[in-house]
């Protein structure tokens, strides 16, 4: 008989057992280790860390494994774990200018001090399936060969201390200064979002926001829905030191390095009678290698600053409430998926109403104001 009356408890247990089996797959295949995921599915791990708001490649890899590779589920797992963590200290702002750069490109200048460093990127690969990877135990020799054939010992080569491209423009006054916000930035995982939000809070929400959603919004600005003329001023990815200043010590101590991707966009200039025209900025930052996310974030950040520059605001990407209320995929995924939960009672209420309306319609014929076809929407919009 139907689950709602009896059997919910048993059904859940069975579903969990089945899930565990499906997650493992065919047992004749070796089980994936968390270390393998961490090392060989780095970009998935990086995305889970960024949107999960926890820098821990091992836990992120564990989440990916537990979620059978469903990254949103993995992000959710990591977020739920994050809630339970105590806040031990607040770090000093990281200085990405001191980054040990592994990749650094600028689309605005042919060459920049410190040079263009391509690093590891899919950008110029031809998207041809590499059938060699199909072969079991992937040709280790091939990988070794590639490493040795390169002149500098490739992978671990980093360039220290590249001056930031936007600072070079800044020294000429061509671009607005990145205004340091003096006050402690808020924490939207502790305090509810309040509109209008300050830029730091917006950036926090965007950093946690869904890559796909932000990408689509960013794309929409490029297609004219809130255009803001972007140039990729600089994209850099590498390691930065994290420091805390314990009260007992009174000076900063280095507690480790984290890998970050940062994107600084140069956007359309603004000026007025009293102010010389200047370029404006959009900013994006995320954990690990997350260039797509960082770029999308920078474009959306700039769009959301429309009010600051007194620009017309008529596109979704410029609407703070629209973007910030909908960019979190743990929230959106939860609310969309809750439609799977039983709604018998609400539906029954609708059925009862609809039957009544139809009965009256038949009884009164055309005298009664006609029930419009949007009946269902009027009544169901409150559904949940």
């Amino acid at each position: 008989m139907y689950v709602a009356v009896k059997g919910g408890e048993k059904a859940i247990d069975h579903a969990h057992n089945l899930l565990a089996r499906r997650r493992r797959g065919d047992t004749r295949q070796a089980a994936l280790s968390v270390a393998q995921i961490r090392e060989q599915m780095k970009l998935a791990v990086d995305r889970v860390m960024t949107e999960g708001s926890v820098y821990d490649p091992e836990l992120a890899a564990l989440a990916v494994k537990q979620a059978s590779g469903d990254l949103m589920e993995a992000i959710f797992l990591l977020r739920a774990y994050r809630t339970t963590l105590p806040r031990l200290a607040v770090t000093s702002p990281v200085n990405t200018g001191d980054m040990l750069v592994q990749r650094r490109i600028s689309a605005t200048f042919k060459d920049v001090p410190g040079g263009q460093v391509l690093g590891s990127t899919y950008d110029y690969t031809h998207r041809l399936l590499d059938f060699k990877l199909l072969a079991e135990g992937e040709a280790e020799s091939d990988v070794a060969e590639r490493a040795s054939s390169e002149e500098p010992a490739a992978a671990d080569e980093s360039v220290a201390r590249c001056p930031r491209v936007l600072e070079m423009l800044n020294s000429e006054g061509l671009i607005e200064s990145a205004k340091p916000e003096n006050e402690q930035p808020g924490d939207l995982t502790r305090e509810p979002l309040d509109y209008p939000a300050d830029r730091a809070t917006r950036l926090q929400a965007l950093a946690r926001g869904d890559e796909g959603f932000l990408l689509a919004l960013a794309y929409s600005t490029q297609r004219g829905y809130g255009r803001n003329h972007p140039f990729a001023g600089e994209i850099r990815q590498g390691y930065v030191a994290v420091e805390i200043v314990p009260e007992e010590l009174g000076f900063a101590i280095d507690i480790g390095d984290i890998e970050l991707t940062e994107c600084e966009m140069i956007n359309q200039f603004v000026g007025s009678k009293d102010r010389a025209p200047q370029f404006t900025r959009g900013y994006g930052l995320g954990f690990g290698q997350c260039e797509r996310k960082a770029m999308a974030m920078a474009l959306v950040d700039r769009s959301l600053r429309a009010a600051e520059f007194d620009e017309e605001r008529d596109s979704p990407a410029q609407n703070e409430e629209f973007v910030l209320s909908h960019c979190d995929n743990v929230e959106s995924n939860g609310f969309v998926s809750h439609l799977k939960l039983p709604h018998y009672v609400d539906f029954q209420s609708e059925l009862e109403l609809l039957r009544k309306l139809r009965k009256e319609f038949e009884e009164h014929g055309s005298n009664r104001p006609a029930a419009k076809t949007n009946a269902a929407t009027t009544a169901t919009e409150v559904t949940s």
Partner: protein
Amino acid sequence: MNADRHEHVSSEAASPEGYNFAYLDEQTKRMLRRALLKAVAVPGYQVPFGGREMPLPYGWGTGGIQVTAAVIGSDDVLKVIDQGADDTTNAVSIRRFFVTTTGVDTTEKTCDATVIQTRHRIPETPLSEGQILVYQVPIPEPLRFIEPSETETRKMHALQEYGVMHVKLYEDIAHFGHIATAYAYPVKVNGRYVMDPSPIPKFDNPKMHQSPALQLFGAGREKRIYAVPPFTDVESLDFEDYPFEIQSWDHHCDICGASESFLDEVVTDDQGGRLFVCSDTDYCRTRVEAEGVQAVASPAKTQEVLS
């Protein structure tokens, strides 16, 4: 909400696997209790709170779970229902969550519970003083579907600018001859705030009025808490010539024969066969167990439903 009830709550009473009693840490519970106190002090007002990410998905009761976690103590008896039933999968899941993290006793009997977490229903059995009813709320803002912007709706509440809500209800009457809202039917609390009663059927609205129980509402994703203290006026919006009315059925419950309870319709075959059963499973079972109640359905059908 009883201070004495919470003296038992401490990290020593910790549950398995290193989690605090009722999952949330004490600082978080304190934040929640402050929000709850404010909510009780200003009935129907939506208090923003620092909603946490819970190990259950948003939209599946995280607001209600946080409220329950903030008020539950080790001597509480918990009942969890979804659509009026104790055995719906999400109710089972939430009840298990609290059993694991608090070890409290649970019950299916409405009268035995001190805390009842619910989704979409108010139990048929009248609640009594000292009981707490915790509602899971998806969209706390009753004006949201008229005005999507939070900045605007907060202003509207501050100015008691509720005319648009009556216009919406009036438009329903103009289109359909009735107010076409069957659930999540807006109410005015204590003569001040228009409030979303959560998606309970309007059938349940009258139960909120002057209820001796404390009613708490938690919206996790939207990070809002609101409350109706015991013995508070809760009035469903209506018009003099179109007074508020609740649903009624031409049927009785096919299991217990109840004529006064909210009935779920169960499709029994593809030939138009239908059964009507109480949505509140505890109410239904209590009636069956009590003497003198005869099932009105044919024995075969009843057997099928109960199996």
